């Protein structure tokens, strides 16, 4: 069983994606990445990764998927910040 129900995680991730939707592409993706990195417990992130690996990211917004891909590749490289996406 997922750490937290997958439907709940997908809803939360898409809500974050929806907030950053008005930003241009690069910042939109960076906003989601920064939020998932610094506000989500790593087990929640891992459960989201597992969902993406199992389904290709079913029901996730495209820019959320792109943000997760960057997050998985860069892990903790970038310092946390509050405010507008820095990209």
């Amino acid at each position: 069983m997922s750490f937290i129900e997958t439907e709940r995680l997908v809803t939360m991730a898409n809500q974050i994606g929806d907030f950053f939707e008005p930003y241009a592409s690069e910042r939109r993706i960076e906003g989601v990445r920064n939020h998932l990195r610094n506000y989500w417990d790593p087990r929640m992130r891992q459960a989201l990764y597992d969902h993406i690996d199992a389904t290709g990211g079913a029901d996730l917004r495209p820019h959320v998927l792109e943000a997760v891909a960057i997050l998985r590749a860069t892990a903790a490289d970038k310092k946390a910040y509050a405010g507008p996406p820095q990209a």
Partner: protein
Amino acid sequence: MPIPVRPDHSVTTTCAYCGVGCGFKAETSEGRIVRMIPWKEGKANHGHSCVKGRFAFDYYQHPDRITSPMIRKSVDDPWQEVDWDTAFAYAAGEFKRIQAEHGVTSVGAVSSSRCTNEEIFLMQKFARVALRNNNIDNCSRICHSPTQFGLSATLGAGAASQHFDSVLQSDVVLVVGANPTEGHPVFGSMMKRAVRRGARLLVIDPRRTETVDSPHCQAEVHLALRPGTNVLVLNSVAHVIVRERLYNEEFVRARCDWDDFGLWMGMVGDDRYSPEVVGPEAGLDPDDIRRLARIYAAGPNSTIYYGLGVTEHSQGSTGVMCLGNLTMATGMIGREGVGVNPLRGQGNVQGGSCLGSWPHMLTGYRFVTDDVVRGSFEDEWKVTLDSEPGLRLPNMFDAAVTGSFKAIYIQGEDPVQSDPNRHHVEAALRAMDCVVVQDLYLSETAKLAHVFFPGSSSLEKDGTFTNAERRVSMVRKVVEPLGGLADWQITVGFMNAMGYECHYDHPGQVLDEIARTSPAYSGMSFDKIDRLGSVQWPCNTDAPEGTEVLHMATFPRGKGSFMLTGYLPTQERATDQYPLLLTTGRILSQYNVGTQTRRTANMVWHDDDLLEISADDAAARGLANGDRARISSRYGATELTVQISERVNPGVVYTTFHFAHTMVNNLTSDLDDWATNCPEYKVTAVDVERVSVPQPVAGS
């Protein structure tokens, strides 16, 4: 007439009810509190008080108080009274066993804004050094967590920009989603004083509250918007300011990021946010939106006060950002009489936010993922800290339901009664192996606990509170703790039993530790607060006696940041099956879920939660004043007594949530804010139907 009791002792302390944090002289006779006298030197209240702080103090000696620690193996077993050492050893043994079986991160804790700064700081320290994880949250998760997020994003500080007295220098007062007359009455009186002196009052709230229309206080413009449309309407206000060029270009160029301002202008300036488009969707006259925007922008000193009507939405953080954006666009920030100010619900919600009781942040709103910040705490505490964010309280419950989270230590909170979707919370607690509750009474949550630590009221301990204007005031022990230990001593006892040795002779030593680790509190001490009466943070070498107004010369991160606040309708919508929108609020004489005030003579003023409904909606359902009505939502149902009211528009119903038996949180959804998981308490689609014959309704 009975002869008044003559007090033999008096202690100056701070009220623990709402976020105003009034100073009181608590007077005792033969060791019992006999009256609370408003403290004339109190800088938050200047000798004023409300009926909660003044009269609702007897709860501390109510027969329901539990004064002995208790343990039990199963929630189906009877409680067994034990001594403190046995209770600490049992709880620690269970937590250590669970961590050994399920991992270090399978347990967590939540702190309470009814507790002092020192106690909240110790709770987050407990999680980080004794549990060795960041699974720590505080009760602002379900009220003002969007304030911390939204104001930090725009202005760089998740707190009120002003001191309360600043409102007396305002020309325009904009109140959004708050009813200070009932919820924060002492500040409400000061605000009314400003209105009587000529300040123009603007209100955005679905309900015609007492703030909108009461003796000596009438709003010039009231936007009675449809619940759930805050961001839409605030963007429309911004639209008018942008399209009519009412913004303060000089201020924005000097103080804010100009590029992001341009993006923001492009977004809110779009035709989709014109009042003529927004008005019909939000249930408003477009001309009223324009009038409000023009009055606010004209000032010359306009200020914003807001409450849970902004934060408790799926776009709660976005709504707070809208307010931050408005203050910057119009230059209404950084001096007396202007600013943006959350009206905090509980006495120490601001302290709960400041003192690191977050899964992602240490004190001073600094990320746990920051190696330098974390390192400063590791040096102080001599342990290696978890470098990853922990779980928020709602996510602890989510993980418990799936079997991934096994134990929790709850200080002074009653999530079964106060958190959304009661069924989900109860299922989560029942799924845990060990629930430790520290409270005054056997709360609804304690009924599902395995360990009960008898907590102490704010009248039984020393420490400090931080009120809604960032003012840190002394809380002083008036009577001895009925359970033998103050809350800070309980947490220290549990921490030692968990294997992390620490010792404090007095909570003043905890504030010293806070000062060593927290920049905004670095100049504070019990001695200084005693000497000055109270101190507003930041208090440091630059401002050794504290700071009344924030953002005077610059914002904490330099330039202010305009955030893009696109409107997204909530998923919670009225339908044919659930055609009405329920919203909630408070009444003057009761406080939050009523745990304390229901156990006092304040019951004489308000002894039940009522359902306010418009005459049209009542007539359509055959409802009269005093009828019992069944209220049902997609999530549950309850019954309330009907009060037909002109304060709500057709299509909207309203109730308070002060009584456990009404179970209003049976109705609320588990939808929550995108950024913080703050629940969407303020919008629930419901139906209402008559269930019985009329009964008398108080105050109808």
